[in-house]
């Protein structure tokens, strides 16, 4: 489903001072390749800081996909029709797949899957703040597709041109698969707004009211408070700034909301002729920081669900390994 402007979630130590002449030369060659728009592959030399930044961003992105299955999983057994249930299942399965593509991309940088899981389960790793909000009604499923996946796609499309090729390749696959996520969400909401009862229409508006602000927070803190952005831009890991992406998303969403017949819960939202963009109200960044730091409405529940799934699955992983070892021994004999 998504990524956040994840680069802002960790404080990086300053890159270490280069030591040998050889290392200086490698660094220069690396910088020249980045400047030329070349892609970096897993076995190529890269600065330690570049590697660390990518491991953090890609693993957080992967965690977001996996944790992102939980809020929607809540509604699979409650979907109103078989068609909607099949769609939701396909979407959640995609998210599992997207998590796997991303974990695999991160592993090419020399971190193991177990290390990443361990960091998530121990609460050391972050994932997108958006998944720490509850899914209270069926309209939340449509709204997540429309707004949350919409914001995610806006964030992810530029990463298809990331300088680290395994990440870029994973993103291309993800973006291709994900456009249906946003469309199915909008269509589900449109169905309710067109054919629904007054109560169902009110349910859609309520869901939009709850998800709007968390959705635009998904782009991360404002550019002037985004400490690692400049370096990530320099390295071609990040291509478009948080504020620029947020503005693009808001501008695109306003017309969609009109078409749907819902209002966006921001009294300051209005067209600015001079900027040829929409002005919008102040974002409550204290809420964002609170949720990222672990104190959102569902942080504990989400993490507990992940840890339980992992622990409950341990015997399956062990049994499969034991079976594979036994078969290998038999074949060798």
């Amino acid at each position: 489903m998504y990524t956040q402007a994840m680069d802002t979630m960790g404080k990086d130590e300053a890159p270490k001072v280069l030591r040998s002449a050889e290392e200086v030369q490698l660094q220069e060659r690396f910088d020249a390749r980045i400047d030329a728009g070349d892609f970096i592959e897993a076995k190529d030399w890269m600065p330690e800081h570049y590697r660390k930044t990518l491991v953090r961003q890609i693993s957080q992105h992967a965690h977001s996909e996996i944790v992102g299955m939980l809020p929607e999983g809540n509604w699979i057994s409650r979907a109103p029709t078989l068609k909607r249930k099949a769609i939701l299942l396909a979407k959640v399965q995609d998210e599992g797949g997207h998590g796997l593509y991303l974990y695999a991309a991160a592993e090419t940088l020399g971190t193991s899957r177990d290390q990443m899981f361990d960091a998530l389960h121990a609460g050391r790793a972050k994932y997108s703040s958006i998944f720490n909000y509850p899914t209270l009604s069926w309209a939340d499923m449509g709204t997540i597709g429309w707004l949350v996946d919409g914001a995610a796609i806006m964030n992810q499309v530029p990463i298809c041109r990331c300088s680290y090729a395994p990440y870029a390749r994973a993103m291309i696959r993800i973006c291709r698969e994900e456009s249906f996520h946003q469309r199915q969400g909008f269509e589900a909401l449109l169905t309710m707004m067109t054919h629904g009862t007054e109560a169902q229409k009110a349910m859609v508006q309520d869901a939009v009211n709850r998800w709007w602000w968390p959705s635009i927070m998904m782009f991360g803190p404002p550019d002037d408070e985004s400490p690692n952005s400049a370096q990530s831009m320099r390295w071609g890991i990040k291509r478009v700034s948080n504020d620029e992406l947020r503005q693009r998303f808001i501008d695109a969403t306003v017309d969609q909301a009109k078409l749907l017949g819902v209002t966006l819960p921001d009294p300051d939202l209005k067209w600015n002729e001079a900027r040829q963009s929409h002005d919008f109200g102040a974002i409550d960044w204290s809420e964002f920081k609170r949720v990222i730091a672990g104190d959102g409405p569902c942080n504990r529940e989400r993490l507990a669900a992940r840890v339980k799934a992992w622990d409950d699955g341990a015997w399956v992983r062990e049994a499969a390994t034991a079976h594979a070892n036994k078969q290998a021994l038999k074949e060798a004999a």
Partner: protein
Amino acid sequence: MSTSPVQNEWPLWEVFVRSKAGLDHKHCGSLHAADAKMAIQMGRDVYTRRQEGVSVWVVRSDQIVASDPGDKAMYFDPAEDKVYRHPTFYELPKSLDHM
């Protein structure tokens, strides 16, 4: 990131998918699986959810032998100045353009 040891992770496999009959298998990603049979099944689930394939190959990642990226120039540049290996190098009369 964590410094905890790898806890008996399933081995890594590379997945290759033939998108339709007549085309070659193409690398599309990797996954963890306990054995070959599981790797094939998971390869199908992870990489062909939208009819992207008609055949899947898997191979243990540690079994792949690759050229060294450091040798890229030494290895591949010698072909750079051999333009005469391409048909467009040869100028023929217009009437023979289809040759």
